């Protein structure tokens, strides 16, 4: 690897490709006073103009150069979503290094694995909590040279440790370096190559340890130009600087990275950083974004919130609300049957419902100005999409994965088939394997490979070079793709029947009372399930029924609650064939958590861990 010190004397090559950092510079030239980011701090949304952002990116990039970060070095970021995340990410891209994001919920064992695997040399730990996690395992991280921290509080115990650097001092260091070495950053940036990896995105690791997928400038450019920016993907104009986005999912996940960082760099959209995942509903209401991306869990939460609050109303409000919900279900059904578009009847009903319920309701949940909402990253129940379509939120399901920069399929306006993940983007390669039913893709946004894992990389591709997604799908109407399930999750009962558990699980999770569901039955005679309740909703329900309870476990095991869940299970069973019916179920005795290893950082259930954990309960269901 050439060192930067050597190369800085060389004249700029002047060729230059449009990396994300270059795009930020272009926006600063075109819209110097345009708002690039907002962060809620001290009670108001503090604004960063494009000029501010580009200045900060340059300072941070020079700071990295001053810290002798070289081409291809890894810079890891362990922080909640905040402007510094994006600034350091762009600065890293500018100096041709590689960004690795860690989930704020990652416990120190995972921090150890991720940082040792990536071998990062500079690490951003947001605050003392995250710094503690690194310091616990610092012995096994020989590459790590510098730990930048944003919050100054709680770092006194390390004040003599030369490895620590406050963010403000880091920027100051960058400014000094910038003054001493003018033009160096421009030269480094113009050397960027299409094949440069810009980020390692670690897969969530439902099976085995996480793998770092290397995404390159080519992947980024193809994703931005052929996925995000194409005409007709979203209603109205493609994303543009007038659009507002709420950034609230972890930025280290590919979905939020594309939807926030890449939308911002590529299209000039304004990012609004939510204060935390708990305040999403409040922040949504304040920001009223125009583009909105959600994972199913968030939509489930919003839906449950609406239902509970609706029931809590006074008599008159309940009547109106009930009428509104009736309209939602009729309009939703009409739109689902009409490829997502309004029919005459649904438009008429919407006109009636808008002034009396929908306008206020959408304002309350922060979706009044949403012109495009997307859901993905996990399976979602079609009923939920129908619900949001019914109240006039243009919601589209899409599909993609880390390894193909999320470029696979999406539902387009005018052909929004609820229950499918949509049609492949124009001009990309997507096929469904005849034998296994596996979806495979081939296009320039497919990743370069797993970091330091050539054998895993090889496994990820077919012999003819197609990316194996690991998802089983089927064609609907010859144009749209329906995901059956993850290949490894498909249940084959002892009767030899192939069953997709996620479809049943999602149907269960449509009920606001149920948060987690795992269907079991591989190699068994019949299907069973373990079910976890949504504490808030069931708690509220129990209070109303005057059922006393103490803890999550206590509430879960109340006969009334089991009866309530039985009702939901019966409803679901009606929708499926007899062999797909859940014969027995048990309650999960604790609220699942990432730190306890039951969920991935993206809140997906780790099936193997759960099967281990609940072995006795499961065996009990199949006992004689």
């Amino acid at each position, binding site marked *: 690897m050439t060192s930067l010190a050597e190369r800085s004397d060389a004249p700029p090559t002047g060729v230059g490709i449009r990396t994300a950092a270059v795009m930020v510079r272009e926006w600063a030239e075109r819209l110097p006073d345009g708002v690039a980011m907002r962060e809620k701090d001290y009670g108001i*949304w503090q604004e960063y103009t494009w000029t501010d952002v580009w200045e900060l990116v340059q300072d941070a990039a020079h700071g990295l150069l001053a810290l002798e970060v070289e081409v291809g070095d890894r810079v890891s970021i362990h922080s909640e979503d905040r402007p510094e995340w994006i600034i350091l990410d762009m600065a890293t891209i500018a100096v041709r290094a590689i960004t690795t994001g860690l989930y704020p919920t990652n416990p120190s064992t995972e921090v150890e694995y991720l940082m040792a695997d990536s071998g990062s040399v500079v690490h951003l730990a947001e605050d003392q909590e995250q710094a503690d996690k690194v310091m616990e395992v610092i012995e096994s991280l020989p590459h790590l040279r510098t730990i930048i921290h944003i919050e100054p509080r709680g770092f006194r115990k390390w004040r003599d440790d030369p490895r620590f650097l406050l963010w403000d001092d880091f920027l100051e260091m960058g400014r000094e370096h910038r003054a001493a070495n003018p033009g160096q950053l421009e030269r480094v940036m113009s050397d960027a190559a299409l094949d440069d990896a810009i980020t390692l995105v670690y897969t969530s690791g439902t099976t085995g340890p996480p793998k770092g997928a290397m995404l390159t400038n080519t992947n980024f450019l193809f994703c931005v130009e052929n996925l995000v920016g194409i005409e007709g993907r979203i209603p109205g104009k493609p994303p543009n600087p007038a659009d507002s986005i709420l950034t609230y999912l972890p930025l280290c996940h590919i979905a939020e990275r594309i939807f926030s960082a890449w939308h911002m760099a590529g299209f000039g959209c304004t990012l609004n950083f939510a204060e935390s995942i708990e305040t999403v509903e409040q922040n949504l209401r304040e*920001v009223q974004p125009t583009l909105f991306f959600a994972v199913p869990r968030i939509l489930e939460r919003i839906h449950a919130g609406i239902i509970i609050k609706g029931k*809590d*109303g006074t008599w008159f409000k309940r009547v109106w*609300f009930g009428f509104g919900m009736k309209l939602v279900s009729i309009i939703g059904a009409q739109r689902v049957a009409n490829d997502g578009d309004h029919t005459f009847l649904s438009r008429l009903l919407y006109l009636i419902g808008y002034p009396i319920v929908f306008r*206020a309701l959408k304002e*309350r949940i922060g979706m009044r100005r949403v012109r495009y909402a997307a859901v993905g990253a996990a399976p979602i129940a079609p009923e939920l999409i129908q619900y949001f379509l019914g109240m006039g939120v243009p919601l589209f399901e899409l599909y993609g994965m880390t390894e193909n920069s999320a470029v696979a399929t999406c539902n387009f306006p005018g052909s929004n088939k609820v229950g499918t993940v949509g049609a492949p983007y124009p001009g990309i390669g997507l096929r469904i394997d005849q034998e296994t039913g596996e979806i495979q893709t081939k296009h320039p946004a497919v990743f370069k490979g797993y970091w330091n894992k050539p054998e895993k990389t090889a496994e990820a591709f077919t012999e003819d070079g197609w990316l194996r997604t690991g998802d089983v799908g089927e064609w609907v109407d010859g144009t749209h793709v329906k995901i059956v399930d993850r290949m490894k999750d498909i249940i084959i009962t002892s009767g030899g029947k192939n069953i997709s558990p996620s479809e049943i699980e999602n149907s269960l999770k449509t009920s606001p009372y149920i948060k987690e569901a795992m269907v079991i039955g591989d190699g068994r005679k019949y299907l069973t399930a373990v079910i976890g309740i949504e504490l808030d909703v069931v708690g509220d329900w129990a209070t109303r029924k005057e059922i006393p309870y103490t803890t999550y476990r206590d509430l879960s095991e109340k006969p009334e609650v089991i009866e309530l869940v039985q009702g939901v299970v019966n409803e679901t069973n009606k929708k499926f064939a007899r062999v797909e019916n859940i014969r027995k179920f048990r309650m999960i005795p604790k609220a699942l958590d990432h730190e306890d290893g039951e969920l991935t950082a993206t809140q997906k259930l780790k099936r193997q861990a759960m099967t281990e954990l609940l072995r006795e309960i499961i065996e009990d269901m199949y006992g004689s």
Partner: protein
Amino acid sequence: MRGRPLLYTRYEADQAILNTVTKKVMVLIFLSALLLIPFQVLPGLDFLGENDWLRLLSTVAIFIIGALGLNILLGLAGQVSLGHAFFMGVGAYVAAVLGSDPEGLRLGFGLPMWIWLPAAGVVAAGIGVAFGPAAVRVRGLYLAFVTLGLVFVGDYVFRNLISVTGGAEVGRTFPPLEFRLWKEDTPLIDFASDGAWFGIELTSEAKTFYFVLAVAILFMLLAKNLQRTRVGRAFQAIRDRDIAAEIMGVDEVSFKLRAFGISSFYAGVSGALLASFVGTVIPARWDLFLSIQFIAIVLIGGAGTVAGVVLGTAFVTLLPRLVQDATLWMEDVVETGDNLLATLLDLVVATESTDFGLINTLPGVGPGLSVFQLNQVIYGLLIILFLIFEPLGLFGIWIRIRNYWKGWPFTY
């Protein structure tokens, strides 16, 4: 932000008095309606432009200034004061001494209004601050007693300081509402006589109305602004819990003194305007009943809010008029009618000295309450009812209605 009312990117926007378009439009409509009142063009409200109603509305505007003062003390800083009438009296007599004709019967210096009006406020504020050290040592009921004492001290002084006040029975005249630059013969602007402004013919009542309205709006803005400053927040902290406020770094004594001072300033200006507006006033005008009227205004309207003060003043000031009109109407029915309604109403009003009735329209003769006494009873009842059932006052009722629709389609 436009279209996103909750997205505040600057503290100025977060703290703006009129922070939504709706509020701006409503205020604009309300202000234009007020300006149009004297022209009797508002459908259904044209009667407000009649001279006696205009005088009543001017009284409302003057009372609003006084009530704003008490609201700062009682509603914001949480200090009960029964001495408000005393400070109004101080203001009135300062105005009288400074502004009256030097050749008149009583003491006077003939200075113009731009001196006597502010001076009325400043002197009252000075006395308020001077009285402060006694008041800041006590709280609640005891403070009420201390301030009650002020009213009686004031009453005694006003009765006996004949050269200033004219004595208990006669009273004195006050300088008219007119604007002079100095002691020239014809005033620059004369509010107290008919004439044309900018080519529009206006009665003296209309001119006075416009003048006191402008002053009232100015004082409303000042009061509203005070709430948003450090001083205003310190007042509220003391109101909510004085010990906690001190722990947060609010100097209790200093801020209580300021509250008394500011409140007395408002009272002084209001008293000066009231006396000047009425013309001749006897010292008994500044008695306990006036103080209670102001407490009623603040509590009925909604303590701590400017809008509540406006509502409360309008309600309390117009109530006697309504009671009077109702009594007259009942009398009329009793005297002319001979039906069931007349019989029932006969039980309520007494029209002859020998007649039995709850309300006696012939003061001083026979049993029953006079209209004036009835008003006092009604104020008392309303204060009790509002304190028990709607502590936030009329404004609280409005807040509830607004929140009902704000929460739509939910309840919270």
